[in-house]
């Protein structure tokens, strides 16, 4: 088992003929991900990376049975791409695109909640179930199958932690990058619920960062309800207030969103918080 993506995933790549879309489609296929279709409006009937291209997601669903989508289209077209996927009945939509206006995402998220589709991201590396499906841009070879669920707001920091786990011989059930934007489709709480219900997952690693209160809400959720051990790391302890640290959502504003508050909230519900990324793997190993 795993969460969200697996060998039954039938992936459609939105923006497959773009430079990024094409490169990562090849990488995903090489990893063994079942990529069944691509979509680029105006290029229906062509082929890309050995995959048939359609003009619309609806056609990709009807012709190829796509059930999951990954989006590589530019920021100004990405909200439309997400809505198109949801409207075509795609249940898991992974949006890699960075730079979508926040107000657009508020509308998109409200619509997705109405129709019951799940969005991962935007501005995220995607999601991988090692050995089964890689839906995103993470380097596949650093992962291996195993019992640890990973959920993170970051990209390379997640790879760093996954790499440290794998080097210790500890595999991952699924690693989810939920994205670095202020408004995201899947939160820590959503991912924790899924991992708690997943029989393969025995432990969870949560990688947060400054900005917002998603980590605090994860701590509230964990209080009393969660059985599986959670190890956390929060990036940005040295970040100054009022400055955006790369990610659109990584900003301490109005005194909220500091690393200290998040660490305190997590420690209060018995989550072990690592002092640096490599220590996460040590803590996880000690709990195996």
């Amino acid at each position: 088992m795993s969460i969200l993506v697996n060998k039954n995933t039938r992936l459609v790549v939105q923006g497959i003929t773009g430079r990024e879309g094409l490169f990562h489609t090849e990488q995903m296929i090489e990893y063994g991900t079942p990529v069944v279709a691509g979509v680029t409006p105006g290029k229906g009937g062509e082929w890309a990376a050995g995959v048939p291209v359609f003009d619309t997601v609806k056609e990709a669903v009807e012709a190829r049975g796509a059930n999951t989508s990954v989006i590589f289209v530019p920021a100004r077209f990405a909200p439309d791409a997400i809505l198109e996927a949801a409207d075509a009945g795609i249940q898991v939509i992974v949006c890699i695109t960075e730079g979508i206006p926040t107000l657009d995402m508020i509308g998109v998220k409200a619509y997705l909640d109405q129709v019951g589709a799940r969005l991962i991201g935007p501005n995220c590396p995607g999601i991988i179930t090692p050995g089964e499906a890689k839906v995103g841009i993470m380097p596949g070879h650093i992962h291996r199958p195993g019992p640890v669920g990973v959920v993170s707001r970051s990209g390379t920091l997640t790879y760093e932690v996954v790499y440290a786990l794998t080097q210790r011989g500890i595999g991952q059930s699924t690693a989810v990058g939920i994205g670095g934007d202020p408004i995201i489709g899947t939160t820590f709480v959503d991912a924790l619920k899924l991992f708690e219900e997943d029989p393969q997952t025995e432990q969870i690693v949560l990688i947060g960062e400054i900005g917002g209160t998603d980590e605090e809400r994860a701590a509230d959720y964990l209080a009393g309800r969660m059985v599986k051990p959670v190890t956390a790391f929060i990036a940005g302890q040295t970040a100054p207030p009022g400055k955006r640290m790369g990610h659109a959502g990584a900003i301490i504003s109005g005194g909220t969103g500091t690393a200290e508050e998040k660490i305190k909230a997590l420690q209060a519900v018995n989550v072990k918080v690592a002092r640096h990324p490599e220590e996460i793997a040590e803590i996880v190993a000690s709990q195996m």
Partner: protein
Amino acid sequence: MKLQEYQSKRIFARYGVPIPAGDVASTPAEAREIAERLGKRVVVKAQVLVGGRGKAGGIKLADTPAEAEAVARRILSLQIKGLPVRKVLVDEAANIRAELYLGLVIDRARQRVVMMGSSEGGVDIEEVAAARPEKIIKAAIDPFIGLRDYQTRELALGMGLERELIRPFGQIARGLYDAFIGSDASLAEINPLVITGDGNGGHGDPPLLAVDGKMVLDDNGLFRHPDLAAMRDVDEETPEEREARQYGLSYVKLDGNIGCMVNGAGLAMATMDITKLYGGAPANFLDIGGGAQADRVAAALRIILSDAHVKAVLFNIFGGITRCDEVARGILAALEQVPTAVPMVARLVGTNEEEGRAILASAQMITASTLAEAAQKAVAAARGSTVSA
């Protein structure tokens, strides 16, 4: 992107929010001319993108044009929190009976735009939120339905406004909301929103007046607003921040002495944090993003080394799709463009890490295999000592 007060208020005015008559001046003489034109008592306000202007002496009243000129001269010579004052706003002084607060923010937890009003205006709203949270009235706005009249009425009544102010308040609330949505803002604030002294008559002042204004725009929405993007005050950026922005690098200057060059925002923050954990202090946040083009790495290195406090540079690169040997070659090419005696510690991990490390070892760089080791070596190098591996 933060807007200056005068820019924010001009946007508000376009959406029907009443603001005081006034104009912006770069010289004392211009301030005098504006005061003459207004022909009334004026307030001269420093235009800088930091809070606490009043306490720093950046806001002063002036009764005559001559006084406005003198006050403007003083304010234009100030530095407020390190920022030189280059412009002042000269506004007609308002007749203030009471000060309110009205603002719009993005509530990340509720995933909605939220309007906030308070009868406690003129002070920092965060202080009100901490000390008297019951004094802040909120309305979450559905993205498909928008701000409704009943919500502004509830806000007005919750703030204790007199009955005759409910309608003008509603118009201002709607104007501010339309300005927020129409500009792709992430923050829009009127603080204070003033109840004018003479109510509806007297000098013909509107009953409510937006005396101060603040807007922060969503950088990701600027592509829709070239007119607003052109308002960026490049004088407020340091030369390093400007160069970083031009190269598409994410850079924030900090106070420490260990320069950090990292791929990925989360990893960049974690790298800063670990230098602190081992007794050092980061000089910057810098995310070079994906890829390893030498000119980008060179620009990043140039920006880091332009800070005279930097005593060591720590490269922390996680090779994923990007290969470590490519990054190592990028670093070497950058070092040829930017020669320096500052010690460098490189930690490359992931795809082709061995090849990458070999390339850098030939360049007299200190190398490390773990992040903890790299941080300790960088801290030692910044202190002028070395740590054996």
